[in-house]
């Protein structure tokens, strides 16, 4: 619970990451190359953006399971607005992102206005938004985007994948906000004692609403990047991504009960997972083996820091 103990978790995670990088690059000489690492950055951007937003949500003691569906919905709308409604692509993307953000806002409303527990609310909207995506798309996928659009998902800026820049900026901004601003403080306060936060004149509802909206926004942006990376839109895009994001966040040391967690931790968690996925398959381990290992790492990492923590206090 004390600062000490969760600094510990990040350091522990960092060590683990370095260790993993070392072992993996020793396993395959193609792993620790700039090209490969940058490429991995490209691949983890969508999950990353969502996980960063999710860090805030979970730090308030909430959760957002609907992000995958929001991603799918936004992706589809991008396509539909552009192809079927003939809106110019940039406008279409913006409009779609707006809708995705609104979807997040709706989550927030259900949670704050109707006092529905986040898990239930977003479990329901997970079904709803995915359904909407499928309905709107009529199960058609939209393709054939202009080349300039692919700059976002397949292009590079200064030799670094475009979306990786977005992820980096998002991470830094988020980290600063959570650590040094009153919004971050409010987030933690809500996570540890919502009632007291309310009694202290902090705008609990407002903050939560904002956070779920942000989560929707992150998912929406991820959607457009995703579309640009895979150059097509399908209503089933992003299904299951919520679990990947949550895994990264939790691995990053954010307490699922709220009140604790850092963006740095989440980013470390992300990198660790991606490194394992990539490095292991380079080392000849099959995908399913990797999935298992990630599960094991998740449990062990949290277990380890739990043990640390108890040795810390009492």
């Amino acid at each position, binding site marked *: 619970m004390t600062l000490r103990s969760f600094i510990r978790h990040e350091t522990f995670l960092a060590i683990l990451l370095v260790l993993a990088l070392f072992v993996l690059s020793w396993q395959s000489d193609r792993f620790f190359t700039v090209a490969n690492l940058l490429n991995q950055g490209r691949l983890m951007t969508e999950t990353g953006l969502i996980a960063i937003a999710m860090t805030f949500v979970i730090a308030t003691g909430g959760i957002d399971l609907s992000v995958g569906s929001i991603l799918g919905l936004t992706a589809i709308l991008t396509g539909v607005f552009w192809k079927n409604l003939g809106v110019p692509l940039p406008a279409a993307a913006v409009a779609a992102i707006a809708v995705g953000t609104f979807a997040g806002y709706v989550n927030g409303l259900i949670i704050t206005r109707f006092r529905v527990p986040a898990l239930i609310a977003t479990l329901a909207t997970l079904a709803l938004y995915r359904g909407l995506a499928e309905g709107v798309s*009529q199960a058609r996928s939209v393709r054939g985007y202009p080349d300039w659009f692919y700059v976002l998902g397949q292009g590079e800026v200064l030799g670094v994948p475009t979306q990786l820049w977005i992820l980096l900026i998002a991470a830094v901004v988020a980290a600063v906000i959570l650590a040094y601003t009153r919004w971050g403080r409010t987030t933690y306060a809500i996570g540890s004692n919502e009632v007291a936060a309310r009694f202290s004149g902090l705008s609990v509802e407002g903050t939560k609403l904002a956070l779920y909206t942000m989560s929707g926004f992150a998912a929406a942006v991820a959607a457009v990047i995703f579309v640009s990376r895979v150059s097509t839109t*399908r209503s089933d895009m992003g*299904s299951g991504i919520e679990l990947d994001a949550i895994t990264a966040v939790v691995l990053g040391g954010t307490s699922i009960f709220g009140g604790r967690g850092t963006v740095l931790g989440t980013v470390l968690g992300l990198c660790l997972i991606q490194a394992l*996925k990539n490095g292991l398959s380079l080392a000849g381990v099959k995908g399913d083996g990797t999935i298992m290992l990630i599960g094991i790492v998740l449990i062990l990492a949290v277990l380890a820091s739990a043990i640390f923590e108890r040795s810390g206090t009492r």
Partner: protein
Amino acid sequence: QSAWTGGDDLPTNPLACDATPATAEAKPYDGGQPTNPPDRKGKTLTVVDVPKLVGIGYFNATSKGIADAAKEMGTMNAKTDGPSKANIDDQITLIDNYITSGVDGILFAANDPVAISPVLKKALAAGINVVGYDANSEPDARQWFVNQAEFNGIAKAMVDSMASEIGEEGSFAIVTSTFTTPNQARWISEMAAYQAKCHPKMKWLETVEAQEDNILSFNQSNTLINKYGDELKGIFGMTSVATPAAADAVTQAKKCGSVAVVGLATPNAMKPYVSAGCVKSVVLWNPVDLGYAAAYVLRAAADGTLAPGATSVKAGKLGDLSVINGSEILLGAPFVFTKDNINDFDF
């Protein structure tokens, strides 16, 4: 025809109602080429096979075929690795990793023709030989695609066998995986077109989704049976998951004989129902052969013996396979399993 057939919106090209084969208009090679690949002639190739997903009978069969071919040639180490869910992103990530790890050849069955293309182009650019099977990508994203059977061919086989079982007036429904799965969507469109053209009186009731989940397929089939009662004469199963489940639903509803099940499926999963006489015809090519052919095509492409403009390719025990519309190699006409021959197959 009801509003939601589950087909896609690409143009259809129904075959003639009688047995006359499609007039294959010659088309120039439209595939891609690996950029300055090393000379692989005769050398041993490390090949990875990335199916849509691992863990379903169908792709186990294809990877078996690939393994067989590899053993036969002796100059190929092939391994299969795929996503555990038919998920475009996982598949792309996997292929990307194998590009980095530096394989000589990639065999793929695309979860999404467009989504997979960028990463395949990347593979070509890295000088890797790329050959697809079962589910295509954009032509220029791979060198060759081994086509199990053309969509309109499957459609014809399916609809014809259904018609012969339930008659020209019969009404039928479809159980598919999801409307977004390209192959299924394609087939359904072609079936719709062919049925409208050659069996106009047949009634298309509706299409339901059932994921890749056999219990759900079972429940959906039941619901269809209960909803339409005697009106329902036949069920199409569009996946190797849906078809056996549909057959089971019919069996358990004691509707064998009164409700026909026609579908794409692997023989092993269908044997109980076929030998019980509840299912008369299962349409499929031999996925083992498909994988087998794909492996040989890759070998040929790597050796340069199969170059753009070629009209046929030698595929081991399968003999010569012909090249169709540009850069596709046709495995052959779809195969219809029946009570008599189904036990000769094991996959």
